[in-house]
């Protein structure tokens, strides 16, 4: 049997609902991936600790609160601190066009804004997974 791709899906930040994150989680599951779903209000530290224990290939974070410029680079920094920068980070949510280059520069592998299709996300993961 093939090793399934393992993805941690988290919804950091303080805003209240995780409909988007759940939708992504289901789409990834339907694409044959193992999704570790950690729910709402995760701190970057919690996300990285969970990603390491779960030995995921990729972290997907969805965020609406506008704190993306802080949260995403923070997660990537923590991964580096723990020699885990091989774990890919992708982002989804309401992220202004202007912020995208800096986030990519910081190491976010891909950014999916609200219009993105889940099939695009699945395809991106399959094409870019390092193994």
């Amino acid at each position: 049997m093939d090793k399934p791709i393992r993805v941690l899906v988290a919804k950091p930040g303080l805003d209240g609902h995780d409909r988007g994150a759940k939708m992504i989680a289901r789409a990834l599951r339907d694409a044959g991936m193992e999704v570790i779903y950690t729910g709402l209000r995760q701190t970057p530290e919690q996300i990285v600790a969970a990603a390491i224990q779960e030995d995921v290939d990729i972290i997907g974070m969805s965020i609406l609160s506008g704190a993306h410029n802080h949260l995403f680079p923070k997660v990537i920094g923590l991964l580096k601190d723990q020699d885990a920068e091989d774990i890919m980070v992708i982002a989804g949510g309401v992220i202004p066009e202007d912020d995208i280059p800096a986030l990519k520069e910081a190491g976010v592998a891909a950014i999916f804004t609200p219009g993105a299709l889940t099939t695009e996300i699945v395809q991106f993961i399959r094409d870019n997974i390092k193994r």
Partner: protein
Amino acid sequence: MELINKMLKGDKRACARLISIVENDEKESEKLIKKIYKYTGKAHIIGITGPPGAGKSTLTDKYAKLLRKSDYIVGVIAVDPTSPYTGGAILGDRIRMNDLALDPGVFIRSMGTRGYLGGLAKATRNAVKILDAYGCDYIIIETVGVGQSEVDIVKAADTVVLVMVPGLGDDIQSIKAGIMEIGDLFVVNKSDLFGAQRTATEINMMLDMSQNTDRRPPVVMVTANQNKNIDQMAQEIQRHYEYLVENGLLEERRKKNIKRELLELVEEELKKLVIRETESNGELDRMTDILFNKETDPFTLRDRLLSTIK
């Protein structure tokens, strides 16, 4: 293996990697277990099972936090079903355990039931071995108590906790058939809800009626999401462990599990051997035809097959 040394020194990343090996790579997994087997056998292994949504993860979270107060190292393996159609899974038990993520003395791992070669029980058993060697004092295995393979997993535990909730109604009767027997401790969770007392009474009645006399499992009422009575549950788990130790039953139970593991491994290998010897050369198909035409019977062919291997 470098990873093993790191894991033995308490490196979480290494520990996580090794569990992935156990999940994904049968050959490497064997090599790995050969190296760490001698470090296993120290942890108290607790299986927590019960119907979907009974509060098993919430309970695990609260129990782990209690154990942490005494500085015990705690490992958790949370098993959730894999979709048989897509091979994917949503493993959601961590939602209830989020503030354990940063505790250096806790390691939580989610596992999908997948379609493991050699069975789910084998994969979880090996993951438990890694957490044991890693240094966990307690290892909690959470599974949904529905299928036989899930039951097989918790059977390998030293203490099995069955979680029930009010409102199952007649289900208690039906659960009885396969699962009730394996409970060393019964926990009625969601005691804040109507009917909890009645559920506890029903379980108590059932336990009183059952013939198994050497130890009558206790029933504890808890409210996991309010952290109520978790200490009582913990005490009963401890008491069960002491009961096993004092009566020489821990050794007996573990030996029984070891024997079962060994026989399962032999069975698996033997089957593979037979398939390897008979499939590609068409022998297996020929034998199938012989049986289809009733030229002989399966038992005779089995014996013939086994004698060619010997």
